[in-house]
């Protein structure tokens, strides 16, 4: 993957993780992880529960301060920036790295549309001149608000949520809430979208739609996508590159075909089972 370079027009390098280590007391949740994430491609992180995948996202997005190592974002306009030194809201606002959560975190008492408008807070707040122009209803602000509504409507349509726009999100089904969370993240205009188990709890039809969405976002919109997922039907179909974690170590990396045949991966995933069968045989 050393072929990746920030100036390659087809898939410029977006994120560069170097020797990332995260320790919680005696527990090393991430151990010397290095990874490169390009734009316009889907990069997946897989691994058993407790492997450190969510911790990796938390380190990327400023929710945890990594013990060692660096996370560098190559912003096409603003140049390189170190995410591990930024507060979490800057990671989304300045670096354009936006995440979703493994256990969905919507604003449950607000409507779907309101959730999507909150995601556009910074642009709107700026246009409202810290509420002054907004209070007076000036034209600038009204236009910005129109634009924000239009963006929300676009993603609602794309994610098949338009008829839900004025519904309170807390009342909706799990699969729908997952889609809302993705739509909300898209409203922040991310360069890199980090999805933490977006297919968890989806039915087969919904997961097929998710596949299609991920390919659409990466191919048509050129967004970089970092995907944590257990559902192999999603991972193997959409990933361009897969990184396998086990106990915080990267044990393998490569294309889906390559990963499926990697002995380390097979062992990590089936290891426990193998032992059981051996014991049973003995």
């Amino acid at each position: 993957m050393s072929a990746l370079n920030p100036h390659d027009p087809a898939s410029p390098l977006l994120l560069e993780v170097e020797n990332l280590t995260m320790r919680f007391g005696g527990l090393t949740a991430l151990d010397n992880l290095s990874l490169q994430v390009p734009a316009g491609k889907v990069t997946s992180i897989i691994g058993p529960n407790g492997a450190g995948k969510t911790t990796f996202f938390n380190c990327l997005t400023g929710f945890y301060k990594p013990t060692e190592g660096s996370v560098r974002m190559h912003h096409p306009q603003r140049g390189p920036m170190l995410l591990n030194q930024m507060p979490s809201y800057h990671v989304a606002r300045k670096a354009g790295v936006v995440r979703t959560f493994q256990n969905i975190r919507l604003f449950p008492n607000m409507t779907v549309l309101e959730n999507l408008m909150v995601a556009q807070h910074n642009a709107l707040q700026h246009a409202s001149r810290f509420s002054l122009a907004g209070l007076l209803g000036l034209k600038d602000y009204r236009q910005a608000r129109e634009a924000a509504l239009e963006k929300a409507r676009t993603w609602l349509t794309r994610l098949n949520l338009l008829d839900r726009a004025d519904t309170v999100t807390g009342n909706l089904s799990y699969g729908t809430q997952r889609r809302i969370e993705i739509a909300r993240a898209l409203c922040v205009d991310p360069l890199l979208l980090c999805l933490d188990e977006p297919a968890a709890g989806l039915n087969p039809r919904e997961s097929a739609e998710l596949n299609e969405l991920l390919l659409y976002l990466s191919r048509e919109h050129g967004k970089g996508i970092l995907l944590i997922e257990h559902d192999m039907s999603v991972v193997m179909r959409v990933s361009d590159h897969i990184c396998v974690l086990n106990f915080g170590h990267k044990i393998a990396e490569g294309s889906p075909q390559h990963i499926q045949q990697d002995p380390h991966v097979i062992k990590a995933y089936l290891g426990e089972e193998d032992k059981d069968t051996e014991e049973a045989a003995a």
Partner: protein
Amino acid sequence: MGLLITQPKGAAQRLKDGVGAALIALVLGVPMLGLATADVGGALAVITRWPLLAGFVGVVFVGRLFFQWLIDIFSLRKKRREQARPAVAKSRPWLTWIGFAALGLAVMLPIAFSGNRYVIDTATTVLIYVMLGWGLNVVVGLAGLLDLGYVAFYAVGAYSYGLLSTHFGWGFWQTLPVAGLLAASFGLLLGWPTLRLRGDYLAIVTLGFGEIIRLILLNWTEFSGGPNGVNSIPRPTFFGLPFKPDSDDGATFASFFHLEYSPDHRVTFLYYLILALALLTNLFVSRLRKLPVGLAWEAVREDELACKAMGINVTNIKLSAFAIGAMLGGFAGVFFAARQGFISPESFVFSESATILAIVVLGGMGSQLGVVIAALLLVVLPELGRDFSEYRMFLFGAAMILIMVWRPGGIIAKREPTLRLGAAA
């Protein structure tokens, strides 16, 4: 409260629950009611009062059954209502109509009750609490930050006017913006160190802040007059015309309009003044709620972490809620000082904060109309209860409990969305 408000139960369970409560009453009642000491021929003797105890246990048993029955009815009804409720948030135009009707009534009130000073005075008090409720609603209802020291900002506003007017001769309208800014700075002062705190911890710190402000006012005698407070604060004038009996030094309100002087003029003027201030507050807060900052307040209440992931600077959002809430409290304080003409730390005790908070919670967190209804209840109920003298607070408490059982989310619990795609299209 755990004992009082319980899950709905079936009849058999209700009976069991009643017997349980009766048993507790019996155990507690034996030493407290069943046995008493009496002076029998100069010596202390223990006498028994079993009939009284039996009566007490009986009352507890029946009362508990009745209470459970009430809860069952209310929660059943609520469940039915919830099942019937469609998922899509419906627009409720009747709420707006109630709002306008209430406004009409408020404007007409001094005319309908002209000359009845008691009614107009009470209505003025209600409006002060409405304004305070709307201010605190920004902090507690919208931003979800539990503030138990709100009265501190009220005090800052009141003392700003009290001191600036008596020492430097500032007028009401001159002081208003300054006092608002000062209260807002105190809001930031409180907000800054407490940003990391949530829930109970935040409540305790804000409670302490309220007490600190009160204690400073109480003890810093050279500055605030200490327990004696600030006296002879000038009353607001009608565009420079004072409400005074005719005198030689200049025109008064009565002489200018060729009216017979009456102290009612001032009372009515103060009423309309606070009505105007409260309406401005309402307009301001309703507009803010629809702006990005208002939406962000609510989002912070709902999920702080998700806000950060959306690139929102949660610190600034919380500080803005504290500052704006405090500013509105400060405005109300200026009015209070002008109305009373005298202020002392006694007016800014914790129970005031608690009352304002009760208005917000009872009204339904975030609801503007709910605040009005709750303020009316909280001010008028104790007034109506005056005939019941010592039972007054008991009745008041019972009414509060019933309301919270009936509507756990407050009188107007349902949140109104700030925008709709249908309407926006």
